[in-house]
């Protein structure tokens, strides 16, 4: 682990569940890593794998995609597609020599402020341990 390394973590949160869960974490004043930047989407199924790959290529040290628990998707099945795309993306990244450990998919409901805090803190710590994304130095876009 590099000294003085502040990771850049991007979180794609779905409007109906995980974003609401993140808001609840705020309303209950829980501590969430400041390295996390949240981008709101309507559904985790909106998260194009290319967006995730772009994030990594732009130097994101970690990317979190969070959606509703299976069965609870506001749009019925968007999160199932998110799950499949994510699994495929992880595999693809590995073949490209990128570290798929830098990706995380989590199901967080609107009432799980506590869980949001736990997931984000654990993920941030995990990324800190991994060190900076080597892509940061290799490619400039």
């Amino acid at each position, binding site marked *: 682990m590099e000294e003085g390394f502040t990771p850049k973590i991007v979180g794609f949160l779905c*409007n109906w569940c995980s*974003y609401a869960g993140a808001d609840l974490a*705020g309303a209950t004043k829980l501590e969430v890593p400041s390295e996390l930047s949240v981008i709101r989407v*309507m559904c985790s199924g909106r998260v194009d794998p290319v967006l995730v790959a*772009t994030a990594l290529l732009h130097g994101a040290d970690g990317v979190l995609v969070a959606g509703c628990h299976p069965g609870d998707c506001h749009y*019925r099945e968007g999160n199932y597609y998110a799950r499949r795309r994510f699994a495929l993306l992880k595999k693809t990244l590995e073949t490209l020599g990128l570290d798929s450990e830098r990706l995380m998919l989590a199901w967080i409901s609107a009432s799980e402020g506590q869980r949001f805090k736990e997931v984000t803190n654990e993920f941030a710590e995990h990324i800190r341990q991994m060190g900076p994304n080597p892509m940061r130095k290799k490619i400039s876009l």
Partner: protein
Amino acid sequence: MAKKIGIYVCECGANIAEKVDIDQVITAVSPLKDVEVVERHKLLCSEGGKEFLKQSIEEHGLTHLVVAACSPKQHEVTFMSVCEQAGINPQLFQLANIREQCAWVTPDGEEATDKAIRQIRAAFSRVLYHKPLESKEVECNPDVLVIGGGIAGIRASQALAAPDRKVYLVEKAPSLGGKVRSFSKLFTNMESGLTLMEQELKSLQENENIEVLTESKVEQILGFLGNFEVKVRRKAEDKDLDFNVGAVVLATGFELFDPRGLPQYGYGKLDDIYTSLEFEEMNLPGGPTGGKILLKNGKPPESVAIIHCVGREEKDYCSKVCCLYSLKFDRMLKSQIPQIKVSHFYSDLCIPGKAYQKFYEETKELGIEFVRSAKTEVTSNGEGTTISYETEAGSKGKLAVDMVILIPAMESSSDARKFAEMLNLPQDEKGFFAEEHQLLSPVASAVEGIFVVGCAQGPQSISESIVQAEAATGKILSALVPGRKLELEVRTSEISESFCTGCKTCILVCPYGAITFDEAKTISVVNEVLCHGCGNCAAACPSGAVSLKHFTFGQIYQELKEVLR
């Protein structure tokens, strides 16, 4: 036109101000290109705050608005409304969440301030790429098609019909009435189903706004909510009738599970074994025995066994009303043949609700036997039949009876499959139609504008079927108001004709069937009436042809770029 962006930072009292150094934020974002004004305010969502915003927007002639405050889930709508009042298209606005997801979750003030700046820059970069989307409306037809002329269909038709709303009631049989017409008695009031139906049909016929089409079948339904095109085949006239409606109510009822598939009950092989519907028919004044309960040999039975849950294991659900109507059978039997011995063979008594336990207790007092049996079989004994039963504890017993009434599971009508295909209605694993939401929207199907009520939706009582018919009515009357247009979701998907390769992947993933294929152009097209704006199609498209308005790749990329700077 030159862009003029205004950035307003809310203090939210002390909530944001005590953690985020707002002065530093203002210093950081003021130099951004095309930023016309950066201001702070104590509480932007208050009446005073909104007025301040409006005036400031007008004063500076702003074209885009960024507000840094609480969560968009709190006040996106509030500030969009301010935009509208101030003359900015409400879509040219972005709210940066620096409260719930910044000030409130970041203990260190410096980190909170950095994060706030990041979020605001992201909002700023994004908003420049917003498009001034306009809301749209479409005409809709308030008329309704009701498929199925049983109690649910009849009640729905009557509740829906009005001078400005025509109802087409289509029934495949020569006459209306469905199953209820065959019930000589209804639980719990033990009144005649036939009489009830006669009353219903009389008032139905008096209703000028309902066109009844008996001996007719729906051949085709195209279109979507507000605009369905229907084709009905009229058998008697041997021709088709075409008309348009705004909504469809499926009330195709139920059928009984066929006990012939279960040899242990002897149905179809041994004499005097009847299904519940056959027993009902026997009791009809106009029925095969003139309403008399008789064995095949013409004599009244002295003993009857009623076997519950026939086919329950195979279907894997409880049909809800059978225990209750079997109690009705007890009363019918005892009423005609007071000395008759009646024995029930059941596993669990299902009598939920405020009134039914009393009905059970009073029926039991007539001298009815209830035997809890885990395994029941019917065999011939020369003179009649023998019921062999086994309790849960494992002890076995036998009972000789003259007549057996089987209570089979209730299934969705055989037409269900046909309608499922015709309307693209997903069926659930039990053969009934999948609801829009099992709990929150039980009478709406997965296809917008199509409702499923009564036993077509699931096994239920007459009272519940009528409630569902009225529920679908409530939903339709609320959504399709004569003379009022349907307001559409603004942030829908759109497909670029030139980029679309016609792979149809988007069509496969759309949860709402909102994308259709244009055969002539071999491209996919989004139906904005049905699109809910989830963006699955955009993520799935391999050629980047699909765009979700207001959440385009480009817009999200702007946010991404900023936060990773």
